[in-house]
């Protein structure tokens, strides 16, 4: 991989140059948290942020998306609304980039989803490294580093960003800045390594995931699920803020006064009581306990069987968002039967 470095005080200039490649979106402060938004000025960007409230999946799988317009004489006509918008997501963390690599598996496969694919191809990703806070367990989920899925990735090495160039487009952005980027020296790589091991030591949470699928099978009848079912409000917040939750509902709506309409897809959650409802009223996950169990089971066991890894990147958003403080790390530790422990 092509590796360069950029002086930190030249980042503003770099940001002004990349504007020619698309709309620049970055984390900004909103309501006491952070959200990816379109910047009106570069100074709004907050690259030193813990996590955004919603993950960047909102750009790739919007909360509401029109799949088709319906016109009586033409039938269902695909909508390409918004698919061509060139957006630059500036400042994505490794776990969030990793989550897109996971979603790529779901929205690829034998039936590639053309809406997701189009957005994925049009959205430029510039990653930046981060220091874990009290909710982060990305290292346990093997998502604290990401080796692909970005155009550029910046590692903070003091006065410089060590810059990984992931794609030809990333290289074009580098070249468009003229001689802004420099070749890194051996000392820069050493500084990277030093900070990498500091980051490793900064994790306050650790979960062992290796045999979690087996433990989920063994603990399927565990009383933990009923306990969680009592606590859970089925609000679905954890799904909405999860960067790897992708369940959606599909609904047609008719325009008033005409026979036209649209087919939309809307974020859904397996915690909602209608998720496993079938025709005639049969519900395969009627109880809240069965639904919260399903969410954990699908992420840590089902998805592993299907795609080879959990559909969790350890971003900590579900823990931060849960109104009744259901904590995935705690649940996994209880299932495993170990006390909270940190080992470096």
């Amino acid at each position: 991989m092509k590796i360069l470095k950029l002086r930190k005080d030249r980042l503003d200039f770099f940001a002004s140059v990349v504007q020619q490649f698309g709309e620049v979106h970055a984390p900004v402060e909103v309501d006491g948290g952070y959200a990816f938004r379109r910047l009106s000025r570069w100074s709004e960007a907050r690259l030193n942020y813990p996590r955004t409230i919603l993950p960047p999946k909102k750009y790739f799988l919007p909360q509401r998306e029109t799949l088709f317009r319906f016109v009586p004489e033409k039938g269902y006509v695909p909508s390409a609304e918004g698919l061509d918008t060139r957006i630059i997501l500036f400042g994505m963390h490794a776990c969030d980039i990793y989550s897109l690599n996971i979603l790529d598996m779901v929205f690829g496969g034998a039936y590639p989803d053309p809406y997701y694919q189009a957005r994925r191809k049009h959205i430029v990703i510039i990653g930046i490294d981060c220091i874990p806070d009290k909710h982060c367990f990305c290292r346990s989920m093997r998502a604290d580093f990401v080796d692909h899925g970005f155009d550029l990735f910046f590692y903070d090495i003091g006065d410089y960003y060590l810059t990984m160039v992931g794609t030809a487009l990333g290289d074009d952005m580098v070249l468009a800045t003229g001689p802004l980027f420099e070749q890194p020296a051996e000392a820069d790589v050493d500084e990277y390594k030093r900070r990498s091991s500091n980051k490793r030591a900064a994790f306050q949470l650790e979960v062992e995931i290796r045999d979690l699928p087996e433990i989920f099978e063994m603990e399927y009848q565990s009383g933990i699920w009923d306990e969680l079912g009592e606590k859970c409000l089925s609000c679905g917040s954890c799904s909405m803020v999860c960067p790897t939750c992708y369940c959606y509902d599909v609904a047609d709506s008719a325009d008033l006064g005409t026979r036209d309409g649209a087919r939309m897809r809307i974020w859904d959650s397996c915690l909602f009581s209608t998720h496993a409802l079938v025709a005639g009223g049969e519900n395969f996950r009627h109880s809240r306990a069965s639904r919260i169990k399903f969410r954990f089971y699908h992420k840590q066991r089902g998805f592993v069987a299907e795609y080879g890894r959990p559909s969790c990147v350890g971003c900590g958003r579900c823990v931060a968002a849960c109104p009744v403080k259901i904590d995935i790390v705690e649940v996994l530790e209880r299932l495993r039967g170990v006390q909270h422990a940190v080992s470096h």
Partner: protein
Amino acid sequence: MPSAIEAPVTDAVWSANPYQPHAARIVRIYNMVENNHLFTLRFVDEDIGLSFRHRPGQFAMLSIPGTGEAPISISSSPSRPGVLELCVRRAGRVTNALYRMKTNDLVGLRGPYGNGFPVTEIEGHDLLLAAGGLGMAPLRSLLWYALDNRDRFGRVTLMYGARTPADMLFREELVSLVDRTDMNCLLTVDTDPGSVWKNHVGLLPGLFDHAEIDASRTFAAVCGPPVVYKFILRKLLDLGFRKDRILMSLERRMKCGVGKCGHCSIGYKYTCLNGPIFTYWDAINLPEMI
């Protein structure tokens, strides 16, 4: 502007869109059982009709413009191409809207989806079909596939039970199979209020007394309400069936049909991709399956 982001990627939205419903005309509506009509559909575009090649046990996504989309199992056999027959239970918004439509009206259709029955694996073996109530709808495709390719299968047995004769799907058609010598068609009803029923009266498992089944060379396909699974599965295991030779067709509310939306997920399988046909061995290993 670099060329890397100039590629016309949105073309796929038109050319390779797995969610694209295709117009199909209702050519016949047959009032088979109350609230379980048989809809015969033909694609408006002949090429799309020809390229729609399903396997017995697969399903299609049916769209009613402005109302929505629902998964429906295909009841016709691929050995009888040209039209698709969907046995649709009137149960929700989409199916209610379909029941308001008339012959010649247009609906949307896409598919086929799901794994279907492993017909090439079944070929060369005996086949036992056991259905209760509405469970005949997904098995009927396999039945006709076997009868239309009779030489590829050993003994073919159908055991089908409904509450009363009026509740029996495909009644006339199935009654006409009773006299066939190349298969054993066993039909039963729980009760016969009209006293006109000339076949068996009694519960479905009782039909095993009239069937000759050699578990070592037979695949069983089972579909019905939970009570059917409860008794039939027990019986099949007692007869010595291997758990992976008992095939079941499951119902889930797919929203996409192609393994994305998450609605039909059971344990670690998607009903739409890995099913809707599962073996009994799968069922034991997947929680909440039936």
